């Protein structure tokens, strides 16, 4: 595993843009560079994607390499696997992560296992992009967070960019990776701006970012929850708790080194995730931390995640099940008690 890096200000030419645009940048850049890259998905061509990520690609690269598909999630992932086997570099857009269970078999049983089960004879360089995130009005089939479930399936790489720069850098790495990569893009972050380096900018898969340094307590998090952790950290600072934030950026491979290094220093850890707390990302990371740093820890690894309930439709219900800044602050204070006393 490469060394963890701080969230550095990127070098060279930089442009301010939204995550949505940064992802598009990565697609454009790589499509121009590598004729094997093509994009398929529902409404990705003429319409430019349900969230505008693929906007303009049809015009720039033509309808052979930018293809609107029928509503056939399993089929399109399966086709992409076949095209990847036969030398292409497909990028599939699945409109939202709630639809991943429709192509779960193709992703987890086929793409993920192909390299292994062919004894390394065939690799499947495939990217499956999708949007995730719980918000009012989405409801049970349109606003899930299921990234945690994919962690359990060997053979997949999983990225979950937070900043626009990471969006570009990770997606570029994903397209170039010889293995299947699932890219979870947060609904909450698409519109958030940040500086993005121009040109050939990659961020390695499997390396977390230390988003904020602190000495009292580590918050390990990812996706839209990073912004809540930021807010919580400010509030906690005011109360005398100095928080370190780890933005995972990749869920598989998991950058245990960066996580453990941080917790070895702060001795207190919290994992915050938008997915359900049961059997998800928070569970895995809590298990890893306590397994490795049991005697260093000053308290249990605290999990803050969504309640184990389907994503609701109505705003107050959504608010009630999601982690909140207050919730994070409260849990952090309880955990840090030892220190503050």
């Amino acid at each position, binding site marked *: 595993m490469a060394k963890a890096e701080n969230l550095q200000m990127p070098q060279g030419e930089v442009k301010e843009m939204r995550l949505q645009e940064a992802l598009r940048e990565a697609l454009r850049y790589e499509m121009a560079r590598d004729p094997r890259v093509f994009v398929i998905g529902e409404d990705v061509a003429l319409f430019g994607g349900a969230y505008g990520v693929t906007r303009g690609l049809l015009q720039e690269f033509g309808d052979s390499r930018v293809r609107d598909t029928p*509503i056939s999630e399993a089929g399109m992932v399966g086709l992409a696997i076949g095209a990847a086997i036969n030398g292409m570099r497909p990028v599939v857009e699945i409109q939202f992560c709630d639809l991943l269970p429709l192509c779960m078999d193709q992703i987890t049983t086929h793409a993920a296992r192909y390299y292994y089960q062919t004894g390394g004879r065939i690799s499947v360089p495939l990217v499956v992009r999708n949007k995730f995130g719980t918000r009012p009005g989405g409801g049970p089939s*349109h606003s899930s967070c299921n990234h945690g479930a994919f962690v359990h399936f060997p053979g997949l790489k999983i990225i979950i960019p937070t900043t626009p720069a990471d969006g570009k850098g990770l997606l570029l790495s994903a397209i170039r990776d010889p293995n299947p990569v699932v890219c979870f893009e947060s609904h909450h972050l698409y519109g958030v701006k940040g500086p993005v380096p121009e040109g050939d900018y990659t961020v390695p898969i499997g390396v977390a970012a230390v988003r904020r340094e602190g000495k009292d307590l580590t918050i390990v998090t990812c996706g839209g929850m990073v912004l809540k952790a930021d807010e919580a950290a400010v509030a906690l600072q005011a109360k005398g708790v100095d928080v370190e934030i780890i933005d995972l950026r990749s869920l598989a491979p998991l950058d245990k080194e960066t996580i453990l290094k941080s917790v070895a220093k702060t001795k207190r850890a919290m994992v915050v995730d938008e997915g359900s707390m049961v059997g998800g990302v928070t569970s895995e990371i809590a298990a890893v931390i306590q397994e490795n740093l049991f005697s260093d820890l000053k308290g249990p690894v605290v999990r803050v995640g969504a309640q184990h309930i389907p994503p609701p439709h109505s705003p107050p219900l959504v608010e009630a099940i999601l982690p909140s800044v207050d919730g994070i602050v409260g849990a952090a204070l309880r955990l840090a008690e030892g220190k503050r006393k």
Partner: protein
Amino acid sequence: MLDTAKRKEMLRTMIKLRAFEEKLEELYQKRAMYGSTHSYRGQEAVAVGVCSALEPKDLIASYHRGTGHIIAKGADLYRLMCECMGRLDGYSKGRGGKMHMGDLSFGFLGNTGTVGGTVPFATGAALAAQIRGSKEVAVSFLGDGAMNQGVVHEAMNFAGIWKLPVIYVCENNLYAMTVSVEKSVAIKHVAERAKGYGFEGKVIDGNDVELVYAETLKAAEKGRAGGGATFLECLTYRWDGHFGGDPGTAYRAKEEIEAWKQRCPVKRLKEKLIAEGNLQSEEFEKITAAVYAEIEEVAKKAQASPMPPKEFELESVFAKSEVAHG
């Protein structure tokens, strides 16, 4: 031939569907409605023709563009409106929104936001009827886009081999979101596929409510008599964008939209009834006004109704005992 009273009732229901969508759109613009709208305007003859031909005990499964289906089957407008607005009095207590509801008291098996997802439910409900020997038929509404989902294929094959009393009502409105049906299937009519499952597939004018009614009635009788499934491809068109906020013009020619508006199912039945001398313009205006007023009332009442508390209940996920069915 349908009697006038029934046809006027269908006319009235079509207006109701339309008025409901218009109100919803207005609420959406005002951000009083959560999630997206999926306007049914232009397709009213399908829902109304089908549901008018069904018996109360018959069942329907619906999809994202479902408001029309369930109003036609007998949904309570207040509960529906509340659900759209995320209110506690909604069909799903605000948990599901308009894409996630279900209520067997009026034969509504449910809908979901996953395209094609409920097609097997109607098929399985028909299986239940067959095993039990009860005589209800089940209708599965689905869009043209749903025809390319694997599970829809699987479900229809089951209906074929087991001769299930199910009617697939495919509303071919020429687009799945922004992708035209011509780009999505390589044949002129998806009804052709029914042959591959061993049952009849018909292509009909989906803007002719009387025809939709008649074909549904035939299919339901066939199903009840053990004759198995029927596939009805109803050619129709959605006037509005795919969802609230989509003008629907980025991928459709203005002329196409205009041409289809000329084929308005409400106008068509209205003009026919007037030509027959069975309806006066004033009567039509009165019906229309009454329906719009009713919807207005419902919306007001819904807007004044309580939101759910900011609380979650882990118990809301599991039934403690069986919910009375049927």
